[in-house]
């Protein structure tokens, strides 16, 4: 399956500019969850029809259940991306879908019948723990024909975890890293090979975050506040930045898609800041806070509510930064043409704890804006509302009855601006086995958080 007609051979696109010219996404793959709901059914991969000309537009058209219950599907990644563009033997065919709680890795064939993905293989969490002393898989990136996965804990769920290395046949090679340095926690990562760098961020130990969010544990240093710059070839942490109070719980890491750029960004969830970094002319890495979301008081609660930036994303042309304040309920768009001086260009509200938008287009929204995925052309942003089952249950307990939902936001890549689409709404409260929650989304042809150019 070649993603685009101009490709010479391998998967993906020759460049970010080529990726932007790809045909519109017609299918979305989104993880849907029953963990934490009381419904004794496995989590599943939902395939959603995103073709406006189709009679089943904006509906779940197939569901692939995992073999057992209790996985907590969360993030996912492709077996191959544009980093293999020159390799005719590679194909973007399999989605790797981990369970954070079970540590199982599900390898899902999305190419044989893209509308009905099938389970190709399961790497059992117990095997991963036994062979590598790692658990709680999170982010997946492919590196040429290798696959690496950030693992947030050891076999007992303690920090700092490490990185699991799989080969292209989905066999466990072992641990990817040579030296974690002083890394205390693990979470997300992104690499930029032309600068021989990988950046990784810090959530917390699985045993800390899996049961839910005890805010008080932040002060006991149970949550991360550092950013790690790796020597990518040597697979070792080269430099660690202590972000302090401005960088509490740094989560999603994004480099520019432009492989020559050294600019990157991370969203610090709890302090609700965007941190920007780049390599200065003298070759030293530098970081700065560029956006600060103010906490909001609540009339009845003793502690003000942070935005809780649970996700950030860059458009394929690196011009726009998007992020969600999951607890406030807004999605923001900034023009980051000058990354040190972002311009606030768009905002929409859906759900959240501030009560600004309990409904959008007459449909009830439970939860807040959480995972987002942007179309390659930068015009459509798909948004889901669930973060993590135990955290959902703390902040949005009604999600158990109502389920999550997906909305689409139309974005204006020329002038900036965003607007919630009137026609697209996927109600996971109406799923056949009962209300489900929905988290990360990917498209068959690659998306704005999957592909890296080497």
């Amino acid at each position: 399956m070649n993603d685009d007609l101009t490709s010479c051979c391998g998967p993906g696109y020759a460049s970010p500019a080529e990726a932007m010219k790809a045909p519109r996404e017609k299918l979305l793959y989104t993880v849907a969850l029953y963990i934490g709901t009381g419904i004794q059914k496995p989590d599943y991969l939902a395939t959603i029809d995103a073709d406006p000309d189709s009679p089943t537009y904006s509906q779940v058209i197939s569901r692939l259940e995992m073999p057992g219950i209790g996985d907590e599907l969360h993030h996912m990644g492709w077996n191959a991306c544009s980093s293999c563009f020159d390799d005719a033997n590679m194909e973007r065919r399999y989605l790797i879908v981990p369970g954070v709680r079970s540590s199982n890795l599900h390898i899902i064939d999305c190419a044989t019948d893209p509308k009905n993905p099938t389970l190709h293989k399961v790497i059992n969490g117990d095997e991963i723990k036994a062979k590598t002393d790692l658990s709680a898989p999170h982010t997946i990136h492919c590196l040429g024909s290798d696959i690496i996965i950030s693992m947030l804990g050891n076999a007992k769920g303690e920090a700092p975890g490490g990185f699991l290395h799989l080969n292209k046949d989905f066999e466990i090679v072992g641990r990817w890293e040579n030296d974690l340095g002083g890394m205390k926690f693990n979470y997300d990562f992104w690499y930029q090979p032309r600068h021989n760098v990988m950046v990784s961020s810090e959530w917390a130990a699985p045993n800390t975050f899996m049961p839910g969010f005890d805010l008080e544990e932040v002060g006991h240093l149970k949550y991360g506040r550092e950013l790690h710059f790796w020597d990518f070839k040597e697979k070792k942490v080269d430099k660690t930045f202590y972000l302090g109070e401005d960088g509490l719980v740094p989560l999603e890491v994004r480099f520019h898609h432009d492989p020559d750029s050294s600019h990157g960004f991370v969203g610090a969830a709890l302090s609700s800041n965007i941190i920007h970094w780049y390599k200065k002319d003298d070759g030293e890495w530098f970081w700065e806070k560029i956006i600060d979301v103010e906490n909001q008081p609540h009339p009845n609660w003793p502690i003000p509510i942070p935005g809780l930036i649970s996700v950030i994303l860059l458009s394929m042309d690196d011009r726009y930064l998007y992020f969600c304040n999951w607890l406030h309920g807004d999605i923001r768009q900034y023009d980051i043409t000058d990354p040190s001086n972002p311009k606030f260009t768009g905002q929409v509200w859906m759900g959240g704890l501030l009560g600004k938008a309990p409904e959008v287009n007459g449909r009830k929204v439970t939860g807040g804006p959480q995972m987002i995925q942007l179309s390659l052309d930068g015009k459509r942003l798909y948004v889901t509302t669930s973060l993590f089952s135990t955290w959902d249950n703390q902040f949005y307990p009604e999600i158990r009855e109502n389920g999550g939902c997906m909305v689409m936001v139309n974005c204006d890549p020329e002038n900036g601006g965003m607007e919630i689409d009137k026609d697209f709404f996927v109600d996971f409260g109406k799923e056949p086995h009962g209300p489900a929650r929905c988290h990360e989304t990917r498209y068959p042809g690659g998306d704005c958080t999957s592909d890296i150019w080497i």
Partner: protein
Amino acid sequence: MDTDTVTITVANRGNEQFTVDRRRPLLNSLEEQGVSLPYGCKYGGCISCAGKLLSGEINQAAATALNNRQLNDGYILLCVARPLSDCTLDVGVDSHDKLYRNPFASPLRSDELKPDIATPSPINQETNS
């Protein structure tokens, strides 16, 4: 009477009773006897399997996921909890009425944190002495 077994009464499943091996985690014993229960990590780190102990005694030394407020409310982790006596439990998400709290609305006192970081509050010290 076999001293290796105890009787578990599941209150919120019609008070159904099960004879279980006291050396094995309750999750395994109950699942094997047809009780469908939620779980995730299966090592005491994630609270997906939490149930509420209404009477009896258990050992859950391997549990790391519960804070002291949850423990004081009777929560146990069935994947690692082994019964020391006959017990009565509520199981499943129906028993989770007090398991989750919004930390901005209802902060924990220092003695309500997880056991590894909790410090006794002055009030508790007084009641304990």
